[in-house]
């Protein structure tokens, strides 16, 4: 019986078992429904935003396939196959969209993006995962409390500041250390990128390692394994899905990062696998050239097509990673019993 008001003649027990008047229950149910509806709407807005961005970018790139005028300048073949540009010279991949004969080969841009990402991942994965293992398995509590925020602080530095740092300081230092003939090259840009990727890999890996039950570690140590053996042979494999997810997140971050490569990579569209040469990446190309293009032209459509490529690439990588993580979890859950 309610202490606060006389119980009306018509009453019901609500979900909590408290006697309430019918109208009050309806009001609460209505309010619940409204709040649920509002939250669902907000979530759907997020999904809608992603879909709409893809639709918009795709629509602006559509003239590549539908417009005859654009086809005169560029088509899929000319973007991906080597073309002969000078009579007597070998077929080559050239990206030089402004000129009497515009040249739109995607290959130098793909090679550039892959080279820079490769350097970034080669540095960031060992450093990030090792730091996560150290912070999670070996560091004292006080050290961990200093280490975690400091590395996460690195994530808070704006990428333009990191790009500026790479351009002004790292490039000169690396050139004197390694004797590159190009001062701005894939290694400089890759190392700059690694600075943004390491915090991503560290944070997610450290969370994954922390989620491994203590019983695993205690069992391993009880069986006579050393702390190193426990960390690398027991904890790390147990956290493998999370660490893999971290690596994929870092990969996605480094593919799409624009400002650092725009400032520190030299932006020369060279198709070669040498890491000491300047590179031009897909996102930097969009950033550098978007200001110039005239609405609706071939160059405009090609730049949006690059956006579509980046979208598809990230989507594929994320889906692949999710699939691998699912397989790993299933296999480990099955083996663990």
């Amino acid at each position, binding site marked *: 019986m309610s202490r606060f008001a006389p119980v009306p003649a018509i009453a019901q027990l609500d979900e909590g078992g408290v006697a309430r008047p019918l109208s009050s229950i309806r009001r609460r149910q209505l309010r619940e429904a409204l709040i649920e509806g509002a939250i669902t709407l907000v979530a759907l807005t997020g999904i809608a935003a992603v879909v709409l961005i893809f639709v918009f970018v795709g629509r602006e790139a559509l003239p590549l396939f539908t417009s005859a005028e654009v086809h005169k300048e560029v088509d899929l073949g000319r973007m991906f196959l080597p073309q002969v*540009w000078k009579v007597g010279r070998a077929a080559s991949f*050239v990206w*030089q*969209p*402004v*000129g*009497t004969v515009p*040249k739109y080969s995607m290959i*130098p841009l793909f090679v550039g993006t892959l080279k820079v990402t490769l350097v970034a991942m080669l540095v960031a994965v060992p450093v990030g995962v090792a730091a996560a293992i150290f912070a999670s398995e070996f560091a004292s509590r006080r050290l961990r409390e200093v280490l975690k925020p400091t590395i996460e602080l690195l994530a808070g530095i704006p990428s333009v500041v990191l790009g500026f740092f790479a351009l002004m300081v790292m*490039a*000169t230092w690396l050139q004197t250390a390694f004797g590159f*003939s*190009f*001062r*701005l090259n894939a290694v400089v840009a890759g190392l700059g990128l690694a600075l943004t990727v390491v915090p991503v890999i560290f944070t997610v890996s450290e969370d994954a390692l922390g989620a491994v039950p203590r019983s695993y570690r205690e069992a391993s140590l009880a069986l006579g394994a050393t702390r190193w053996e426990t960390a690398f042979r027991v904890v790390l494999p147990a956290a493998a899905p999370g660490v893999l997810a971290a690596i994929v997140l870092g990969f996605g971050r480094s593919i799409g990062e624009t400002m650092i490569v*725009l*400032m520190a990579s*030299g*932006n*020369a*569209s*060279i*198709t070669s696998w040498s890491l000491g*040469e*300047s590179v*031009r990446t897909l996102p930097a190309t969009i950033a*550098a*050239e978007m*200001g*110039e*293009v*005239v*609405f609706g032209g071939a160059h405009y459509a090609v730049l949006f097509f690059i956006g579509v490529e980046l979208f598809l690439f990230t989507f594929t990588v994320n889906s692949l990673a999710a699939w691998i993580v699912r397989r790993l979890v299933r296999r480990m859950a099955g083996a663990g019993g």
Partner: protein
Amino acid sequence: MKRTLLALAALAAAAPSLALAAVTVKGSDTMVILAQRWAEEYMKKNPSRKVQVTGGGSGTGIAALINGTTDIADASRGMKDDEKAKVQEKFSVAPVETVVAKDGVAIYVNDSNPVKQLSPEQIKKIYTGEITNWKDVGGNDAPVVLYSRENSSGTYVFVKEHVLKNEDYAASAQTLPGTAAVVNAVAKEKNGIGYGGAAYAKGVKDVLVTGADGQGYKPTEENVASGKYALSRPLFMYTRGQPAGEAKEFIDWCLSAEGQKLVTAVGYFPIRK
């Protein structure tokens, strides 16, 4: 309620000043410092006028003129035929070109580079990638490191058309977002070569360019005005149709004696003394 009313009142008071139409000037990075000086002086002399200047490259300025987001487009290259056609198509009036200053494109090398003079032909061979070592032009035995501008830049297009004679830049030419960045890069790279508007050449040295008579000339005012310096170009302001209203007043002021004095102060060359 009271606070909302107060806020609305403040906004209404501010509105007239927000509503003042500014003359927008957008485009060439080569001209941006000059345009800013012009705008500052003009607004000082005419306090009721507002001029808004942004850079972004000649291509950006011309694109803005076509899209209707700027009144005046600064350009360090001429408008292309298809760009002019687009303006005609959208606004039923042709774009009008006004020459406002002259510029020499300077070729920079690092201070420590022994090479002092280059002919336009040699510069072409270097930038198209035919010459890849400094020893082929009388320098050290070292690879040439090319620095260029992004393809949204009027300077890029000017060098491509007038120096490279419409051939492509070498793939190894690194592109940087502005003349100051090019100067910075060449200053740090002892085998570097770069190009840019003459007003920005601080910290590196200009290369003498061989003129028609075989002599080498620096990009000074006299050489550019007389045509002895081979790599000189006019700087333009484009408007949709003949300049009118506040835009016309601004452009007329830039062409006046006061405005042209500023051109020399910034480091370019006036079109009339």
